[in-house]
């Protein structure tokens, strides 16, 4: 019996509802309908009175979650698409993210953002928003790349006493399958070396982990062993694991699907060059999406975000240095 990334998200919510009486779900079309992506399929039946349809009011959705958290609940909010979280942005960064710091009251909410690009989805159903949220203090930003991480990290998110922005990637929803969910392995905040190597390190996360692995496999044919690090959590960021990898390889390429200015890749490269300058045998590189909105047409979309092929090209340049 295999499970998709999307099913893992459903199962994690099932498990959260089952084991934590304080958990409830709130989001548009998530009750009887089971959500735009079916990530909450049947949950309203299995847990009557704990899964609620929300009005098209992202600001109030997040505000309600914060209030509920004050009273000891652990709400999971589903944004229908990550892109619509801009409408709840203020409540996330100013209400949820400051609550603990200002009032010593913890704010255990999880906001699920169906993130990232898929062909034909266009500028407003494709965004990767981890960098926006990571910039603000007081939030934990998770970006699972595997079925198992989708499952365990969502459970971890619910158990954390802090607000978590859970960036699940829509491209992986159906594409990614696992035979089974094993034991919980890494805690939140730890990156994973998904492929060992010694010639260069690719630091990446979410859907780009898979593009990077494919690129690494390509380069393997030419005898290059590329280490691929999956950040898993972009904030906190596991600098130690990154630096240890760079210490082994001397070269780093950081790959992200988000817009190029600032964000995860800039943060990674800034940390590596500040903290591991002497370990670098070549200038650090990064690869992001292009600096335009995300295009609708697949021809453009494929060129807008990094792919195994553009990652491979970048790696070759890095290795040539």
């Amino acid at each position, binding site marked *: 019996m295999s499970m998709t990334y999307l099913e893992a998200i459903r199962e994690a919510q099932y498990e959260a509802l089952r084991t934590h009486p304080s958990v409830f779900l709130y989001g*548009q079309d998530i009750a009887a309908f089971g959500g735009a992506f079916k990530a909450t399929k049947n949950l309203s039946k299995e847990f009557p009175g704990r899964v609620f349809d*929300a009005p*098209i009011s992202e600001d109030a959705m997040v505000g309600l979650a914060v209030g509920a958290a004050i009273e000891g609940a652990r709400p999971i909010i589903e944004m229908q698409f990550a892109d619509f979280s801009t409408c709840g942005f203020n409540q996330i960064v100013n209400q949820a993210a400051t609550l603990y710091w200002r009032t010593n009251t913890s704010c255990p909410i999880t906001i699920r953002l169906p993130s990232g690009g898929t062909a034909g989805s266009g500028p407003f159903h494709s965004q990767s928003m981890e960098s926006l949220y990571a910039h603000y203090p007081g939030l934990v930003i998770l970006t699972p790349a595997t079925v198992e991480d989708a499952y365990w990290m969502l459970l971890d998110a619910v158990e954390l006493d802090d607000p978590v922005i859970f960036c699940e990637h829509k491209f992986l929803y159906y594409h990614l399958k696992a035979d089974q969910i094993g034991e919980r392995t890494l805690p939140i905040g730890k990156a994973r070396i998904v492929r060992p190597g010694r010639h260069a390190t690719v630091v990446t996360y979410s859907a780009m982990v898979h593009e990077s692995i494919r690129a690494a496999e390509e380069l393997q044919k030419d005898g290059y062993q590329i280490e691929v690090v999956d950040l898993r959590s972009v904030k906190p960021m596991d600098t130690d694991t990154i630096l240890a990898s760079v210490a082994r390889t001397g070269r780093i390429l950081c790959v992200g699907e988000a817009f190029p200015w600032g964000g995860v890749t800039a943060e990674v490269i800034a940390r590596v060059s500040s903290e591991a300058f002497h370990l670098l045998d070549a200038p650090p590189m990064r690869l992001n999406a292009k600096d335009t909105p995300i295009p609708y047409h697949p021809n453009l979309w494929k060129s807008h975000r990094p792919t195994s092929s553009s990652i491979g090209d970048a790696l070759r340049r890095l290795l040539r240095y």
Partner: protein
Amino acid sequence: MAQCVTAFKSMLQARLLEEKLASLYRAGGRIVGGVYIGKGQEAFSAGLAVHLEKGKDVYGPLIRDQAGRLAFGEPLLDTFRTYLGVITGPMRGRDGNVHRGRPREGMPAMISHLGSLLSVVNGMLFARRLQGRLGDSVGATSLGEGGTSTGAFHEALNQAAIEKLPVIIAIANNQFSYSTPNSRQFACGDLLDRARGYGVQGYAVDGTDLTACVSVFSEAVKRARAGGGPQLVVGSLLRLSGHGEHDDSSYIPDQVKSSPLGQDCLPYAESQLKASDLITDEEVRKWKDEFLMEIDAALAQASKEPTPDPFRENWRALSTAGLVEGQFEA
């Protein structure tokens, strides 16, 4: 009443056009992205737009306004070119389906975030007034009842009322926002009750009844042109399709579907207009044939046109070329 006939023709054309889009979607491969249609909402959509004048008025259509677009004068080709993502279309493959528009020609291109278009329409009218060229032109836009729950819509409607802008807001209350029934979307008896709280004129109409829609919007547009400020029109109806073509709308109870809300506005309008001797069977048949030919021709034309080429794309989000950076990557 001539407007009813014009509106009817747009409804018919929209229905045929959207059937084509839906079948292309189901066939797979040619349509980029999803297809969202306005079946069942054509009367309400065209009933508004038929009162607008292209080149003079502003029309900000939303997701279920194919009929209104056609009534306003959007060329068929714009639709196909956008759905196929070819570079000849107004969105040039950069954005798609219902997001198309030609802002400088009075038709802003909606973004997905519901509720956020009204303030843009406000701004267009506001600027024209400042520039002394508003005259008796108006703006019009629509929204589903679900969209009224957004903060953006509230702010914009209030703004329109404060500025007393000549804007007509058509709320298509199709009882569901995606799967969510009205009972989970608002708690007032009728969305019309909102009008007074904004200090704007409100109207209710049976959105399945073309002649009713045409006459209510006629009144609303007239008042707006005459300086009466924002006009809020709430139409009751049902969408006779899924939210998008991927959706079977099985969450809409049969009982609702078979209620008067579920009346199909197109045959109803046809029978009304025939009964009033405004149109004949033969005319309808002729229009259908014409429209189908036009649709096929537009589709054939758009299909021949080039899809975007990433290597020819300029990849710049700023109009000031000198400020565009490289890709910041080594």
